[in-house]
């Protein structure tokens, strides 16, 4: 059985509120949690495969150019070395998310420092690594621009122009015009990129660490010139992705080529340095924000002009202005996104592309405007929530932004007052608080999942969907359990295998709503199948604890199934419901920050996040997503920054000692409020995306708190001690 829904209309039946099991939203533990904390959940590189060769990528120490020659013989005689590959099909970059086609080939055309150009394969990892370091390669080098500020830009998307922003600024009672920069970010997932490829002479099977298998399968097949049906990908556990594993990357393609050429399994694991140097970065940005307001604090003009960068021939533009389209009012609008072409590794999706750097700057500008007007910054925001999309006019499907600001303020203990910095000092530390809104566009993609009821009365869910540490195993078992009247532990969820129906994959916070909806649709069909067996209307049947109950009777599912298995495949496709409505998740951040008067060190002391993201499917895993997002806010605000060499363009800080993600001590008590919503336009399960929301804007709350603490407005992220001190000296 296959059920297909293209969601053109709002589904406000709220089915999951009416079924009887009562497990939706429950904070159940992850079914795979024990495996993970005991180190027994196998990650891509950990599968024990007999006779496996080891491959190590060789990277180019030049900015740009071509491989002229490779002296294979120099290393083929080294102990254990089996082959040196520089196949035309090797890829120099990773594929962008949902590219669904091979990334840039051949790898031998070098476009950025550190690009993989060859693969050395040996019997042991150590031998391969040593030989890789010794492989003599001659290059024909070329120059190329590396400074994003020094090149001409071109529009990366059509600008949004409405009215006359310049005039609105001229006529404004209060205005802000500020330019803020952010630096490049790395995904910095714990598990490095890794693949083990096996070729049986006609088909390829690859254990890999990937987020979106159905796309990755096409990308890999296309890279290799193979038919898709000949490629199987397996990613049951993924040690974090944060966007860096959306597309197929160099190691999986290289391992596959090697396995096909050598007739033996080949494992390729990137070193930490290679992950940093060759996998997607988030572009640095330069953003000019202009806000014009009348005497009452109503926005009359809103401008957000952003500069980003990418390699030549990469389409992906960091959508910095994405939620600026609809977050705040202002009749006169100018939103632009301009691209500089430079030779740094590919810019692609890194944790909440767009909003993760685009909201915090707007939120800083809003804070400055509130100060100029002399009102509480929450009040300014509440005054300026539009009734509908400010340009396109469609309605918000749901928006708990005002409630998040108000309830978050209450929970945090926000003092309602105009901001006036330097009000509290504890010893060497200035203490301040800041607020910011959160916004993240909601998206869904096509997804399929197969659900079955087994003769023993247990359920099974199968999809090539991945769980990248977010809790997918848990929530899919809850959706199926709720629909089929089973405890989640009685639903086996099998993921991360392209032999299963193609789910959405994990990315863009789309997984739960997309694949969750496919599971939901399949279960609706199973409910109908059961109702038919009972000869009752599906709506009059309650499934609970393994029993079907209806007016006048009850029967165990095992009895009803009578030794059979029943199966259905759900097929969800987004339709007009997300076109006719503006569907986005919203929230609010509150931060208390201490700034050291002497050293400019800034430390977050506490933080509250209040979020509305539709139906909460699992309070534990959803909260964890919010905690993770808020943690990234701290990194984004204070420490994270890719440092590129100004001479040859290479990435200097390419390990976790020098690329500073927050450590435990940087992350204080984080309070999370989840405001339940039902959003029938978002998905038939009324859920929106949550994963990325927690990091969209929070760095702005921290920046505003730094100002409230010490009086320094810092306009460069991250706000490292040197930058805070420089700003303090300007006060």
């Amino acid at each position, binding site marked *: 059985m296959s059920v297909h829904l293209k969601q053109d209309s709002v589904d406000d039946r709220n089915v999951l509120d009416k079924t009887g099991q009562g497990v939706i939203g429950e904070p159940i533990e992850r079914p795979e949690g024990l495996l993970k904390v005991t180190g027994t959940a196998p990650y891509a590189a950990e599968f024990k495969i007999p006779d496996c060769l080891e491959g190590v990528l060789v990277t180019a*120490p030049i900015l740009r150019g071509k491989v002229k020659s490779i002296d294979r013989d120099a290393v083929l005689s080294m*102990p254990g070395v089996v082959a040196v590959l520089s196949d035309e099909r090797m890829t120099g970059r990773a594929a962008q998310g949902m590219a669904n086609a091979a990334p840039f080939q051949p790898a031998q055309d070098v476009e950025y420092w550190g690009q993989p150009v060859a693969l050395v394969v040996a019997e042991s990892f*150590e031998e391969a*690594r*040593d030989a890789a*370091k010794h492989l003599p390669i001659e290059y024909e080098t070329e120059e190329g621009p590396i400074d994003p500020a020094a090149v001409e830009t071109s529009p990366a998307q059509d600008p949004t122009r409405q009215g006359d922003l310049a005039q609105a600024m001229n006529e404004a009672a209060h205005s802000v015009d500020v330019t803020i920069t952010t630096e490049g970010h790395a995904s910095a997932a714990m598990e490095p990129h890794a693949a083990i490829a096996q070729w049986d002479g006609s088909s390829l099977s690859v254990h890999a660490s990937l987020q979106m298998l159905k796309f990755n399968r096409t990308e890999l097949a296309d890279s290799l010139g193979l038919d898709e049906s000949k490629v199987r990908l397996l990613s049951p556990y993924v040690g974090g992705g944060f966007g860096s594993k959306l597309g197929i990357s160099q190691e999986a393609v290289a391992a596959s080529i090697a396995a096909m050429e050598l007739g033996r399994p080949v494992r390729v694991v990137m070193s930490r*340095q290679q992950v940093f140097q060759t996998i997607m970065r988030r572009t640095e940005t330069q953003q000019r924000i202009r806000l014009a307001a009348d005497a009452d604090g109503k926005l009359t003009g809103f401008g957000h002009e952003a500069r980003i960068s990418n390699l030549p021939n990469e389409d992906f533009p960091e959508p910095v202005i994405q939620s600026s389209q609809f977050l705040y009012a202002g009749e006169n609008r100018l939103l632009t996104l301009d691209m500089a072409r430079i030779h740094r590794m590919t810019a692609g999706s890194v944790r909440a592309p767009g909003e993760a750097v685009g909201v915090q700057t707007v939120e800083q500008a809003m804070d400055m405007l509130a100060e100029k007007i002399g009102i509480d910054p929450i009040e300014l925001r509440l005054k300026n929530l539009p009734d509908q999309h400010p340009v396109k006019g469609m309605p918000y499907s749901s928006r708990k932004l005002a409630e998040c600001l108000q309830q978050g303020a209450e929970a945090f203990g926000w003092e309602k007052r105009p901001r006036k910095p330097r009000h509290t000092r504890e010893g*060497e530390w200035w203490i301040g608080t800041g607020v910011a809104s959160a916004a993240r566009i909601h998206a869904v993609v096509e997804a399929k999942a197969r659900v079955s009821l087994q003769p023993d009365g247990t359920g099974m869910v199968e999809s090539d969907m991945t769980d990248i540490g977010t809790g997918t195993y848990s929530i899919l078992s809850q959706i199926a359990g709720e629909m089929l009247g089973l405890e989640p532990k009685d639903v086996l969820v099998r993921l991360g295998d392209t032999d299963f129906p193609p789910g959405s994959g994990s990315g863009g916070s789309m997984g739960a709503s997309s694949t969750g909806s496919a599971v939901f649709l399949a279960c609706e069909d199973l409910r109908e199948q059961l109702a038919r067996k009972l000869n009752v209307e599906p709506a009059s049947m309650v499934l609970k604890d393994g029993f079907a109950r209806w007016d006048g009777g009850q029967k165990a599912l095992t009895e009803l199934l009578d030794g059979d298995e029943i199966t259905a495949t759900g097929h969800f496709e987004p339709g007009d419901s997300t076109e006719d409505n503006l569907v986005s998740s919203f929230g609010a951040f509150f931060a208390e920050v201490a700034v*050291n*008067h*002497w*050293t*400019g*060190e800034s*430390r977050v002391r506490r933080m509250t996040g209040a979020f509305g993201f539709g139906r909460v499917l699992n309070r534990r895993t959803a909260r964890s997503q919010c905690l993770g997002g808020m943690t990234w806010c701290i990194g984004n605000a*204070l*420490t994270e920054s890719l*440092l*590129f*060499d*100004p*001479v040859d363009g*290479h990435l*200097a*800080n*390419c390990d976790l*000692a*020098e690329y*500073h993600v*927050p*450590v*435990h*001590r*940087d992350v204080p008590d984080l309070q999370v409020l989840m405001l339940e919503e039902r959003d029938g336009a978002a998905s038939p399960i009324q859920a929106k995306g949550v994963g990325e929301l927690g990091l969209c804007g929070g760095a702005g709350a921290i920046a505003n708190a730094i100002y409230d603490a010490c009086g320094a407005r810092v306009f460069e992220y*991250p706000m*490292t*001690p*040197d930058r805070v*001190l*420089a700003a303090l*000296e300007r006060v």
Partner: protein
Amino acid sequence: MRPFDYQRAERLEHASQLAADSETLPLAGGTNLIDLMKLQVETPQTLVDIGRLSMGEIAEEGEGLRIGALATNTATAAHPRVRADYPVLARAILAGATQQLRNKATTGGNLCQRTRCYYFTNIDQPCNKREPGSGCGAIDGVARLHGILGTSPQCIATYPGDMAVAMAALDATVEITGESGERSVPVRDFHRLPGDTPEKDNVLEPGEIITAVTLPAPVSGKHIYRKVRERSSYAFALCSVAAIVDMAEGRITRADLAFGGLAHKPWHDPRIAELLVDSEPSLALFDKAADLLLEGAQGYGENDFKIPLTRRTLTAVLCDATGVEA
């Protein structure tokens, strides 16, 4: 990583004999050396594992304390005598790395840890320290972590550690055994300035093994270790100050200061104590101390901020130590 031979030393003489070969390096906790071997920055032909030598003891020596070269950073920081009499040392150690690393890191290895310069650890970049004569990538490059004092046109790297900064303030002594016998070197003279030979971090000659660090008799005063860093743990110092400051009758009677993150060695400038001792503490005095300290300071663009940062951090430490209100 290059293939290498591994030998385990059973006796100290054996270790220094083996290590006398210029292609041989002693291995202690391995937290620095093994990382650098993986990156092919260090390419010894032989590792001589000194881990089994009995140099792990922390023992009274006269009124002072002798910390064996193999005592772990965790053991040293937790030692009751260190906590009671040399708290600046415990604080410095605990400000470094992580618990896991400190469990493995040793006294000798910590003193000999190599710079964190990004160009030193990337073998595809020029670096005079790693490959003499190849140039210095950092001078015109990403120099955020780099030195402002005692640099040379050949190298602007810093000694990155914390423990040795406190030891320099305490005026501890490094005990060394080599093929030709034993010698002692003050911690303050153990690390070198880069000059024209940045490949040499310290005064150890091939075959010389650190056996212990001895701390002199404890002195009274307030012990402070102040480390400025971007994140609050697991980051090297942008600048750090180890201070033992004592006061009597409104005057400073002791001011033993050393600085980290600024130079190729823990920085100690005797003129600072001369200036401070016998003076009444004041912001103006602290400013003069900073003037002395930073007299020859030179930034390299990205690390220019270290000059004002060091001035401010020194002032903060001295205010804290003397009770002067900012």
